[in-house]
């Protein structure tokens, strides 16, 4: 039996989605002529500004394309569902947003993305576009601390892209943008939990099996298995388990400030996310950590997967400025 989806043709789902996105957001987004998988901000790129190109597989909406706009990313290269885009649309993004000050590539740390973005970076270099790359690795469940370079990028992308996008918008030079992007990544910590699978539009089969009373801790945003599977716990227990790990790594001091993201993987509703946020806020206030800002909702999804993640960004003055910097994107606004 196939899973239920409101689609036409699984193989055309990504392209039809993009048509629907462009129809909905003509004041924010356009496709590069001849390259429909290269989505550019109408108002983002400008001369002398570092161009920020993000991207990755589809199925994580509003990540990536929803974060394209003035003050955040200048372009997103769009892959098939859960598949890195090939080098061509990435290169077209780079060309479209290059304002002479260099281009920053940012994406989650996955083998496929690394290979495709690296190929695109080499091609861009041949076109005399200087490209720097910053991989996001915020998923603390995906590798131990001493192998941070192996970690995946997940919902924390949102904070990391936001910080880098602000730096680019402030016309910082490429080195500074890169530094801020790396710093943002190093201060961002995510843990997730999955309750039920999603299914790819082409196969319409659940992408993993999970017991009716089980949850998977640390599952990736493509349904990659996590660190352990166990009985479904209460919201407070789940949130505590996430926070225990996040806070152990972040090690905030009393009086430190953080930004909070409680993110749905797809079908977990706001009611559950806010119940989790209640616990996040209780725990942080217990240890004297101040919440500077909180975002709750669907920010980085896995199609219709059930589950949620908690991300904390450890702020300092610079990161606070970057997060507070205004942006106006198709699917997100700040400031």
């Amino acid at each position, binding site marked *: 039996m196939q899973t239920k989806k409101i689609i036409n043709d699984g*193989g055309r789902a990504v392209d039809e989605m993009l048509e629907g996105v462009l129809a909905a957001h003509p004041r924010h987004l356009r496709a590069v002529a001849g390259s429909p998988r290269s989505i550019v901000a109408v108002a983002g790129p400008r001369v002398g500004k570092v161009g920020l190109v993000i991207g990755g*597989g589809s199925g994580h909406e509003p990540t990536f394309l929803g974060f394209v706009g003035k003050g955040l990313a200048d372009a997103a290269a769009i*892959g*098939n*569902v*859960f*598949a*890195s*885009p*090939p*080098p*061509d649309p990435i290169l077209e993004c780079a060309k479209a947003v290059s304002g002479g000050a260099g281009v920053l590539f940012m994406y989650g740390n*996955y*083998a*496929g993305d690394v*290979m*495709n973005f690296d*190929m695109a970076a080499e091609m861009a270099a041949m076109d005399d576009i200087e490209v720097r790359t910053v991989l996001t690795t915020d998923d603390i469940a*995906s*590798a131990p601390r001493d192998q941070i370079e*192996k*970690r*995946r990028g997940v919902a924390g992308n949102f904070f990391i892209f936001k910080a880098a996008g602000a730096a680019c918008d402030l016309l910082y030079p490429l080195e500074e943008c890169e530094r801020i992007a790396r710093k943002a990544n190093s201060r961002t910590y995510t843990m997730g939990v999955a309750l039920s699978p999603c299914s*790819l539009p*082409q*196969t319409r*089969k659940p*992408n*993993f099996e999970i017991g009716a009373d089980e949850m998977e801790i640390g599952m*990736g945003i*493509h*349904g*990659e*298995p996590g660190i352990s599977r166990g009985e479904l716990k209460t919201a407070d227990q789940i949130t505590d388990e996430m926070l225990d790990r996040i806070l152990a790594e972040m090690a905030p001091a009393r009086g430190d400030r953080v930004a909070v993201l409680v993110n749905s993987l797809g079908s977990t509703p706001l009611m559950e996310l806010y119940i989790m946020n209640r616990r996040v806020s209780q725990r942080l206030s217990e240890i004297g950590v101040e919440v500077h800002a909180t975002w709750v909702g669907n920010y980085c999804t896995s199609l219709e997967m059930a589950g949620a993640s908690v991300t904390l960004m450890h702020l300092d003055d610079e990161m606070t400025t970057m997060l507070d910097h205004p942006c106006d994107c198709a699917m997100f606004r700040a400031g």
Partner: protein
Amino acid sequence: MIDSARLKTVFRTIASAMDTHRDRLCALDGVIGDADHGIAMTLGYSAARDAVDALDDTCDPTALLNTAAKSFLNAVGASSGPLYATAFMRAAACVKGKPVVEDADFVAMLQAMAQGMVDRGKAAVGEKTMIDAWLPASNAARTSWDETANLCESLSAAVRAANAGMEATASMVATKGRSARLGERSLGHVDPGAASAVVAIEAMREALCC
């Protein structure tokens, strides 16, 4: 001797074999990855098939293989895209200037393909990837060719080695690709990229020897 018309048949045969195995490859990827490997491989090989089919039969093998590389890559992205695209480009380079692919060239092409994948993905044998099928397969083809100078014998040797390599991945802990984060939990499961390598190599033999 393999002319461009026969090379097209090779792509057609692989594409249809991938179609047959699509759901099995997705299911294998669902266990230790993101459940899309069958999709990537069918997309890639059918794009390559369509692109080379659209070429004139007089087009040289290098141009044909470069076309396959580009169309595979653009249809797929993912991990498989750069890996197979690099493989095809190396195969193309390997027969540069030749009007047709001699049987000996085909064996050399297999080795160039495997080396291209290694260069692109930086994986060694034992890391639970498609390399664990491709590298022993291409080496086995070479050894067999040196002994027999018979392409079909060589391809049969490649198929056997690919199968053995694929099966060996079940007892490996992944250290490259998406499943690398699984650690011990990847044990006991065959790597989907190694499984699709077997499908591809078997289809080559079918196209050229049956």
